[in-house]
Each structure stands twice: as structure tokens, then as C-alpha cells.
């Protein structure tokens, strides 16, 4: 179905006969339209046949609709377990659940046995995760990191296929605060009007 691309607001220039419009109203239960078809049907029995077929389609659609309703009623938001980990396949829900579990593990304090020393960096930096944790802690003390570090955002996941587990790709965001002695803005200079960086220095009168 989606192979066809149509805009909702595209003009509908295709020809539609008055007879089809009458049948649409009749199938929707418009009594006047049904009367009209009965009258016209005396001279044109094919119209009555057509109505019967359209009503048959309506019944089949309604039957599919009942099955679809049952399907929709199974999709429940209030049931957290179902909502976050329902699909038997490796879809988004499973990926999200894996990511949540992984993220939970990643933020657990690691035991000394799990720490791997990196030569030349010193005992304080045992692994990349430890280094990251230490950076956050130190940066907070120095006022470089503002607020809490947002939980990682899941970008994607895939099963590794060799039984080792899943590869989970996440984005970690850190809001940093830095002091810059000067900044630059693009400005047109000279007759050529070429864009060049122009230094902006802080106003000293504010300091006084």
C-alpha cells in the first residue's frame, strides 16, 4: 500500500460517477440514497447488483475491522512489562529493554577485580568507564559539568550472533561550562565582502 505516494491534500481530479457517489451514500446507510437506488434499479437492475456487492464488501471490511479491534485492544500502555518488552522478535522494544539493562549495569560501581590497570596513567584510571566517572566527578568539583549527566540515549542495537550478546550503541551527553577569554564571529570585511572571523573581547567596564 505504501508503494503509492499521495499527499492528503492532493487535488482529487480522478473521475467519479454520480452513480458511485450514490452507492457510497447508500452503503453508509443514507435512506434517501437507498430509495433513489430502488427507483433507478427498476430500469437499471445492474445498479441493484452493484449495491449488493458494495454491501458485501462492507460486511467483509467490518469483519476485518473486528479482528483489528481485538489487535488494537491488546496494545496496552498501562502494562509496563508488555509495553517495554512484548515482542517475540528483536524489535525496538527488546532493544530498549536490552539497552536499559546494559545502561543499568554500566552505571553500577565496579569491583576491584574488574578494574584493569593502564600502564603509565596511574592507579586512579583503571578503565575507560572509570576514567569517565572520574572525569565527571572532578569536572563537577571544578564547575565544568552542569547538572546531572543525562542517561544514555539508545541509537541502535544488534545481536552479535556469536553468543557473546548484543552490541548497543548509545549517545552520552554532557553539558559543560567553559570560560573563554575571547570569542569569534563571522563578519564581512574589505571591499570583497568575504566572510572572516572577527575577534570579540569581553568588555572590561563590566569587570570594573
Amino acid at each position, binding site marked *: 500500500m505504501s508503494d503509492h505516494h499521495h499527499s492528503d491534500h492532493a487535488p482529487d481530479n480522478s473521475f467519479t460517477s454520480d452513480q458511485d457517489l450514490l452507492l457510497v451514500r447508500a452503503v453508509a446507510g443514507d435512506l434517501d440514497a437507498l430509495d433513489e437506488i430502488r427507483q433507478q434499479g427498476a430500469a437499471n437492475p445492474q445498479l441493484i447488483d452493484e449495491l449488493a456487492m458494495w454491501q458485501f464488501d462492507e460486511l467483509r471490511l467490518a469483519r476485518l*475491522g473486528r479482528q483489528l479491534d481485538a489487535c488494537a485492544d491488546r*496494545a496496552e500502555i498501562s502494562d509496563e512489562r508488555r509495553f517495554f518488552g512484548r515482542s517475540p522478535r528483536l524489535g525496538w522494544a527488546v532493544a530498549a529493554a536490552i539497552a536499559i539493562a546494559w545502561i543499568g549495569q554500566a552505571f553500577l560501581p565496579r569491583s576491584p577485580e574488574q578494574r584493569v590497570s593502564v600502564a603509565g596513567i596511574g592507579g586512579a584510571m583503571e578503565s575507560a568507564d572509570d576514567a569517565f566517572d572520574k572525569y565527571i566527578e572532578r569536572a563537577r568539583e571544578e564547575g565544568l559539568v552542569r547538572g546531572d549527566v543525562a542517561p544514555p540515549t539508545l541509537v541502535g542495537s544488534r545481536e552479535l550472533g556469536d553468543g557473546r550478546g548484543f552490541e548497543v550503541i548509545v549517545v552520552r551527553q554532557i553539558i559543560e561550562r567553559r570560560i573563554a577569554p575571547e570569542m569569534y564571529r563571522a563578519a564581512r570585511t574589505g571591499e570583497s565582502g568575504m566572510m572572516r572571523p572577527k575577534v570579540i573581547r569581553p568588555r572590561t567596564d563590566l569587570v570594573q
Partner: protein
Amino acid sequence: MNGKQQAVDEGCASSFDGGDVASLAESRLFARTAEGDRAAIAEVWRANRRWIAAVLVAHAPRQADVDDLLQEVAATLVSKCHHVRDASSLRGWLRMVAVNAARMAARSASIERRSLRVMAQMKPAILRKEPPETLSAANEEMREQLSRIPPLYAEPLILQSMRGLSQRQIAELLDVPETTIETRLARARRMLRQAVAEVEEGRGNEATQKIGATL
């Protein structure tokens, strides 16, 4: 399903009627939803999920799993409902979320088909697909015939016939004039007739071939 929930589900078509009382109740519910009230979000979901399923059927490829797509729309409702400006734009927003989810599924299906074609040249055995687990044969055939109708026409037809929405309600949801909806419905029903005729003609040819083979 409890009685209250069933009442919400069954009333989802009537919830389109924008009377003052309904609008006031909807506005209050929306305000709670925007604040992230989990119960309110669940209530909004229950009141709208059936017509959302209908929109998904109109726009998604036939092989797409409506269950999965519904979960995607529900997830977006939970995580992004605070982006919706007001109660009156909620349904339009939900419809766009559903249409986008269905189109993504169509793209994925297209990529999957291409991948399967490549894989078929290497390992034909992995091409065996599991049969659909939910739809009965008659409904499967109906969905196949619907899939031959472009979504522009299929959507109003499905919303009217499966969800019982009036032409005015469909026009409001799709934000197009009512007369346009009537024209699209007529076109959709004519296309459906044609699709049925093609299937029946195909069966007739098949039967003729079988008879020919036995003679």
C-alpha cells in the same frame, strides 16, 4: 478487559463528536496527559487506539505487523505527547505518528525484500517465512485486496467501514473537505471492487488451467 475500558474502546468513534461536554472532558484529559499523568496517557491511548490501528492498516505494507506498529505509536505517545499544542490537535498528531510509523515499516519492508533477494542467491533455505499468525484466511484476503488501493483512498474507506466514522469525522481527522472524502470513498470502493474482480478472475483462470491439465 473491564467494563470501563470496553466503554472507552467502544466509544472511540463517538469521541470524535466535538460537543461541548466532550470537548471539555477532552481538554481536561489532555491537560493531565501533557503533564505526564500516566493514567491519563493510558486513557487517551485506549480512546484512540482502534482508529489508529485502522490508519496503520491503510498505510502500512500488508506484511507489516500491526501489533508492533501500535506499540511504536504508543511509545511515541508516551515519550512525546508533551509536544502537542492543545487537545484539538492531538488526534491529528496521533494520525501523523501512525502514518510515519507505517511508512517506516514500508521502507523497512522494502529494504528487507531487497536483502532477501540478495540472500536468495546465496542461501535459498533462509527465505522460508513464517505464515501470518493472527489473520484468518478471509481477512488475510481482504487485507490483500485493500493493499492494492493507494493509502489516500484506503484510509477513509477503512476509517468508515472498520471504525464507523462519518464522512465529517474523517474529513476533520484528515483535514480535508467532506466532499473530497466522499469522492475518495467512491474511488476506494470502486478500486476494491476491481481488486475483488481481479482475484476472482485469477481463481477462474487457475481452475480452468487445472481442468485443462486433468483432461
